[in-house]
């Protein structure tokens, strides 16, 4: 089911259907449609693997409680994104203040001691490098970059989800993309050096 149709329908047999104007919203469908997306996004936003389950549990309980209040002025995905982003922000603030984001030293781009990426490890190595890049971004830039470049939300959707002006989204995205281009260039150089 597409995001748009999810925002107005999503009814399936056995679902909890919540009256929503002329349409209905189903928690089960919202859950099934968004659990992967929210999990990935939470991880990309810096939530540790051992904490993401608790965070998503909280997110879905909020979704469940508020589903009948959802007015459909935005897409469901935008709505749940807003919930997640707020939870992640609170999660980060509640934890002990972390040291300043580390500079992207060369040895952080590629672990020289790590085996060369193979089939399964390839994604993990890439994710570690990407995580290092994301950690170096500001929180605002990170949210915009993750939602736009990894999850492919549009700028207006991100603006709605983060309660931000769309121009601000574009500005942050441009800055993050510039950083990313620089990061990838350095990464490629490093990989080239390693394989030489």
């Amino acid at each position, binding site marked *: 089911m597409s995001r748009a149709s999810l925002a107005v329908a999503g009814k*399936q*047999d*056995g*679902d*909890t*259907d*919540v*009256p929503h104007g002329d349409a209905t919203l*189903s*928690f*089960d469908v919202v*859950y099934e449609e968004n*659990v*992967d997306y929210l*999990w*990935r996004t939470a*991880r*990309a936003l810096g939530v540790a693997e051992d904490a*993401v*389950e*608790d965070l*998503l*549990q*909280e997110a*879905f*309980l*909020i979704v*469940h*409680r*508020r*589903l*009948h209040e959802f007015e459909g002025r935005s897409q469901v995905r935008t709505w749940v994104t807003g919930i997640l982003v707020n939870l992640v922000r609170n999660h980060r603030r509640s934890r002990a203040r972390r040291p300043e984001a580390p500079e992207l030293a060369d040895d952080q781009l590629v672990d020289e001691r790590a085996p060369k990426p193979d089939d399964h490890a*390839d*994604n*993990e190595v*890439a*994710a570690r*490098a*990407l*995580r290092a890049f994301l950690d170096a971004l500001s929180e605002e830039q990170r949210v915009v970059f993750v939602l736009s*470049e*990894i*999850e492919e939300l549009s700028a207006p959707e991100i603006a709605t989800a983060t309660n931000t002006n769309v121009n601000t989204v574009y500005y942050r995205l441009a800055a993050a*993309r510039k950083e*990313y*281009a620089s990061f*990838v260039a350095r*990464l*490629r150089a490093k990989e080239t050096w390693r394989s030489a």
Partner: protein
Amino acid sequence: MTDRAKELLRQGREAWQPTAQQKDALRKKLVLAAATAGAASAATLTASTAKASWLGSLAGWKAVVGVATIAAVTSVATPFVISRMKPAEQAQSATPARQARAHRTDSEPRAAASSALAVTAPTPLPSPSIAPALALEPTTSPANPSALPEPLVAHETTADTTAAHEGAQRRSAAGARTSATAGLPRDLGPEASALLRANTALRQGDSRMALRIADAQPTLFPRAQLREEWLALRAMALCRAGDHARADAVRRQFAQRFPSSIHLVRIARACESHDDAQR
């Protein structure tokens, strides 16, 4: 954006994808969390729906577990009686709690425990504050735990005229919802409910009751999905009951089977006085 840049993003996306096990664990956690902290709002939502979902029907599961217990425990001869359940525990976190309160109504939810429940869908209950009307309660005196167990008895809750009318309306509506359990994880809901009752009993200081429910677990739920929680509960209940020899054995077993469990802290806390005495 270069191909390498796009590829890196794709790889990160795939690496952060949850596994089936992780999603299953989250699903179980959601069910448990809603049962312990959010059953109230779940019941509210359920009342306003035409069908039940696996989460929204948590309150209804309590009716199911009651009947399941009747069927199973009668043969096991565990001394329980199906009767009214105390109000569900309130949400723990501040925000969800406020949200849950906002959804509450003043109506008293009541569910009739009838044999039909054993084979039909659980009746969604309308209010959180009263959540399920069925629960497990001991019938034997705590002073006489070894007394022969009485068979389970299911009895309909007493209700005033208004409530009876509301109950009739709900039962009528439930008839049209009999197929609503299609999306409900029958295997987990009753087990989660029983665990909730045992946990509640433990928190209320009734470790004997908690142990009785835990003792019934292998028979009631031989293929339990919440083994870690059951074992943790048993260890804590034994500590609270002062049966330190058995508690130590269960704790050792728990530590071996679940060495990184988050429940280890809770168990240690429950057994604190015993541990202090040993030192």
